[in-house]
């Protein structure tokens, strides 16, 4: 059976990766991943994505936590 490509959401600091059926907005992908938008930036390659950006199937995005402790 043919496996259609999905959106890959990588959370490198959590060492986690999820796949979501697209198209989806970044804010929806963050909700799916259980991440608040005020704590991350979202990138696709060298591009920074806004929260309303529509991500298509087959894309890989990185969710980078920006929260520093201490």
């Amino acid at each position, binding site marked *: 059976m043919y496996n259609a490509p999905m959106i890959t959401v990588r959370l490198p600091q959590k060492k986690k990766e999820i796949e979501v059926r697209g198209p989806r907005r970044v804010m929806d992908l963050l909700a799916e991943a259980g991440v608040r938008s005020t704590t991350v930036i979202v990138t696709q390659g060298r591009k920074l994505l*806004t929260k309303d950006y529509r991500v298509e199937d087959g894309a890989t995005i990185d969710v980078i936590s920006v929260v520093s402790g201490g």
Partner: protein
Amino acid sequence: MKCKRCRRAEAAVDLPSHHAAFCPDCFFLFFRRQVTEGIRKLRLLAPEDRVLVCVSGGKDSLVLWDVLMDEGYETEGLYIDLGIDGYSDRSKEKVLAYAASRGKTPIVVELAKEGIPIPEAARCVRMQECSICGTVKRYFFNRVAAEGKFTVVATGHNLDDETARLLGNLLHWQRDHLARQHPLLPGAGGGLVRKVKPLWRVSEVETAAYGFLKGIDYVTEECPMSEDATSLVYKEALSRIEDRMPGTRIVFYKGFLDPSNPLRKGPEAAAPADAAPMPEDGPVVDAMRVTEVDSEEDVGTPRACASCGAPTYAETCSFCRLKERVRKARSLRAARGSR
């Protein structure tokens, strides 16, 4: 989404707290303006200042150094190698690479060579790593600044850091801490150098976006010692509020800094915390408090530490007392081991 400033390019950064979204070029202008306005409004820096920028390899400090250089300030970077396995090496690599990209060579202090690597020192004196780290960093900020004739030390604390600290201080009614919390800590002569936090108006998301868009390669992993830091709990609470009510954080902090706020004194009245005595015993310390360990005793003019000559309000400075405790603990362990 189009950029709200130029209205032509596609937006790359959306900032609900500013009701704005910017393309990369317009965001650079916005960000730098936020920083320079923060500097101007609180008179953090003067054009003739020699600025020692404390860089950890993380986004905030490298972005701070980048902006200050672009703004024409005379700067040098100071990297303190904390001696944390793996993490310190990776952080140092980022600092050295960034500095080289700007034609700079940072000043590097290696705590292992100084005989006080943070993890081992914490084990020896049974204190939290963040607490020791704060004491040691402050000592070297002052020492390197004095030796290098820097007029000011700049750190990368941002709006999220400052509001998290404010929330912690309020929740525990730390009146002394509240009175002193400010992006400007005046120097006190005798080797206590002025300290500033020029990123106080910008959030972590903004500094991360700036760093990413500028191609600054920073360390994204967190210090392994800070996993249980109390500041993260306060940041979590504030980010939940910010998510629902964008702009709350900056209103919270600006309101606190208002000179008419009775909870705090003006920076001119604030005694620097650097020479404050270190807590001697007990299960110290809330990580929230460590960057500005305060004390009821740190008022007046500092004197020279009897041991090293560093400015202190006690007989010997907190760094020397810490080193002495580590030395004793090592001797004790060695004696036990030889039995």
